[in-house]
């Protein structure tokens, strides 16, 4: 067997320097005429260990972590030339105990079945891993559209974009509406800050999304397909374009595809122009049509009147990526995972103050605690776990004491957060919850399309109150005002953006009321984040009198001779934080 060396070249890997690693290994292979296959793959989810290099030889598979160009030389020399794997650098293998074995072992990979295991730019590799098998079975067995829809329905798959609407039902509605032209749309406008599941799937396994769309098109008799992908994901767009071209060349897109008479389908990519609200399906359709992406009233739903007023089915990336697997393995196999009302697996993007930030796919029903501590490896720098933010700007903060909540749509909803698309941003004791609420409100306020007054003006008013609180001018009654506005916005907005925009504020008030009160009544920020509420002082023991803070202070509030402890004049101090970030001796204290 010939040894294979695979380098992970997803966005995260590239950002961590994987291109340099790849070039180094390539150069070594050429100059030293080494005998191994060098391959590329995408993100395997272990973003915190990037760049990753996998070596498969006669003895087994070894995954090396943090392989920069220097380490690459070492690994190639020892492992390839001397057949002596470097145990210290191996993060995962099935041969012995490696630090990240649990990280991979605890996952169930359906959506991510190919991500990080194959070259995303090769249709041959996708086909060798059961790619396009599902649609070929459908064509060979002449499975009826209704049967396909029934399988998806029975699998219990619910929309992974955040709404959680049963996918099979959506297809059924779109199929029931007859029209000469119908469309399938893939929502790849992953706009939630803190979420990157769809990016990884598109970069790592674009064909599975295409195949999912082809099956959906077959099921609802669509003849046009659009992938609405955000322009901020250049690598995903590049790989999708390659995949579409390859599928065309094989006759998997075009006329009478897979030998099914009359099954014509073309798919093209529409680059989103940057508007969070376009994740809402009617806004997304307006955007494809070249308009301002403003949602409209439903009904009619897209299944009846969507793109160009034709019946349209919209699902998100992760939903489509599930489809081929479900068709091959059957609805029961999929429904075996998960809880009563939430079947299958869910991909989460772990980020924030968690040790193992990256991508994980777990069966529905796992507790949040297990996701963060077992897979996520716990909190960075041994800090205390405080909360996890789920669902982005539409979601909420789930506090530590509720971390035994299981991940399924209904359990997460019960906490006031939402499952959302799968972003999990972990927060520790140094995160201020009022600041987090303000952060999300600022986001939704900017992203509100302006159509509904409550969303347009209400989010602005809420933001003003939150700014006041974090600036130390909070007043009695502010919390009640926030809640009142929140419920009005929820009740009177047309689309999901407005209806959920207050969630981050409502959940933080519900679970961290004391923190709000500390800001309002005592003018203190317990997490030491809100600068106007902090006092900057010099630690006279540590201060070396280097004058750096003095020179940088924009208001000349710092006095003191060279080599003498400095002093901050609290009257003059504007709390800009410059001294704190400039001091090399950590001698500026916050209180």
């Amino acid at each position: 067997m010939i040894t294979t060396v695979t380098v992970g070249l997803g966005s995260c890997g590239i950002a961590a320097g994987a291109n340099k690693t790849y070039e180094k290994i390539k150069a070594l292979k050429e100059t030293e005429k080494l005998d191994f296959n060098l391959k590329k793959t995408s993100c395997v989810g272990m973003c915190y260990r990037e760049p990753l290099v996998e070596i498969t030889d006669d003895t087994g598979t070894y995954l090396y972590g943090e392989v920069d160009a220097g380490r690459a030389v070492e690994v190639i020399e020892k492992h390839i030339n001397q057949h002596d794997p470097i145990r210290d650098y191996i993060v995962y293998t099935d041969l012995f105990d490696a630090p990240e074995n649990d990280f991979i072992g605890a996952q169930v990979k359906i959506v991510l079945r190919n991500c990080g295991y194959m070259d995303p730019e090769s249709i041959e590799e996708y086909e060798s891993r059961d790619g396009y098998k599902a649609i070929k079975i459908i064509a060979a067995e002449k499975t009826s559209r209704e049967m396909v829809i029934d399988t998806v329905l029975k699998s219990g798959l619910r929309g992974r974009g955040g709404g959680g609407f049963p996918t099979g039902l959506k297809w059924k509605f779109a199929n029931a509406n007859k029209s000469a032209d119908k469309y399938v749309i893939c929502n790849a406008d992953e706009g939630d800050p803190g979420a990157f599941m769809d990016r990884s799937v598109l970069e790592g396994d674009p064909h599975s999304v295409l195949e999912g769309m082809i099956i959906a098109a077959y099921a609802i008799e669509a003849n046009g397909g659009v992938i609405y992908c955000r322009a901020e994901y250049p690598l995903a767009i590049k790989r999708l374009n390659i995949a579409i071209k390859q599928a065309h060349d094989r006759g998997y897109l075009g006329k009478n595809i897979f030998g099914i008479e009359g099954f014509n389908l073309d798919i093209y990519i529409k680059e989103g122009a940057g508007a969070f609200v376009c994740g809402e399906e009617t806004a997304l359709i307006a955007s494809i049509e070249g308009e301002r992406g403003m949602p409209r009233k439903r009904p009619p739903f897209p299944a009846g009147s969507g793109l160009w007023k034709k019946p349209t089915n919209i699902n998100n990336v992760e939903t489509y990526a599930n489809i081929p697997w479900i068709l091959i393995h059957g609805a029961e196999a999929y429904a075996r995972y998960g809880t009563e009302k939430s079947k299958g697996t869910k991909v989460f993007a772990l980020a924030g103050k968690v040790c193992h930030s990256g991508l994980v796919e777990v069966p529905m029903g796992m507790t949040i605690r297990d996701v963060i501590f077992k897979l996520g490896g716990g909190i960075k720098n041994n800090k205390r776990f405080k909360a996890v933010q789920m669902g982005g700007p539409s979601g909420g903060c789930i506090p530590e004491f509720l971390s035994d909540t299981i991940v399924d749509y209904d359990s997460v909803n019960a906490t006031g957060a939402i499952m959302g698309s799968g972003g999990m941003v972990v927060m520790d004791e140094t995160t201020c919850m009022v600041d987090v609420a303000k952060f999300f409100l600022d986001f939704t306020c900017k992203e509100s399309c302006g159509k509904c007054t409550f969303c347009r003006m209400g989010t602005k008013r809420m933001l003003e109150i939150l700014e006041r609180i974090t600036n130390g001018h909070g007043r009695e009654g502010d919390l009640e005002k926030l809640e009142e506005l929140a419920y009005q916005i929820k009740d009177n907005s047309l689309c999901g953006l407005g209806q959920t925009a207050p969630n981050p504020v409502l959940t933080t008030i519900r679970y961290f009321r004391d923190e709000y009160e500390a800001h309002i009544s005592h003018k203190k920020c317990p997490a030491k984040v809100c600068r106007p509420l902090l006092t900057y002082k010099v630690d006279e023991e540590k201060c070396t009198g280097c004058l750096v803070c003095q020179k940088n202070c924009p208001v000349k509030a710092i006095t003191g001779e060279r080599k003498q402890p400095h002093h901050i004049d609290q009257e003059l101090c504007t709390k800009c934080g410059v001294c704190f970030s400039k001091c090399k001796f950590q001698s500026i204290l916050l209180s």
Partner: protein
Amino acid sequence: MRISRINRNETGSSPVEQDLSLLDPIIAKNKGKKGNLIPLLQGAQELFGFISKPAFEKLSRETGIPLSDMYGVATFYAQFRLNPVGKNIIKVCHGTACHVQNAVEISESLEEVLKIKDGQTTDDRFFTLESVACLGCCSLAPVMMIGDQTYGKLTGNEAVKIVKNIRLAENN
């Protein structure tokens, strides 16, 4: 509200000379097609880095799309710029993961060293500083992107160093 994107204060620098005939192929490709407005604007911006008033007028004249519609769409989406930009666009990520890991410090340090505010361009048109919602590299937070290159696990000082090095490389 998205209306806040409209910036009435031009950067104050002299108008840039543009060869508007470069727009002809884009117009020929998209004219008369449904849903063509966004591709037209994207094409114009790709050529010039931003969409100038003369470019708007030419597009409108030759495609028959009213100027008001074009302006409405261009100000709705974050992607479109109505002012000239610098050669290097620095996108500082302010997604959730970056925010809780002190992305503010990155922006502030860069504002200080470049002597511009968020959204502005340096006088020599070398750098434009922008905050963006999320670059999807949360595992490397806090992150910034210059051109196609992503820089992760930053501090304010590191970000400044990277920007200084880019300017040095350019001057040599």
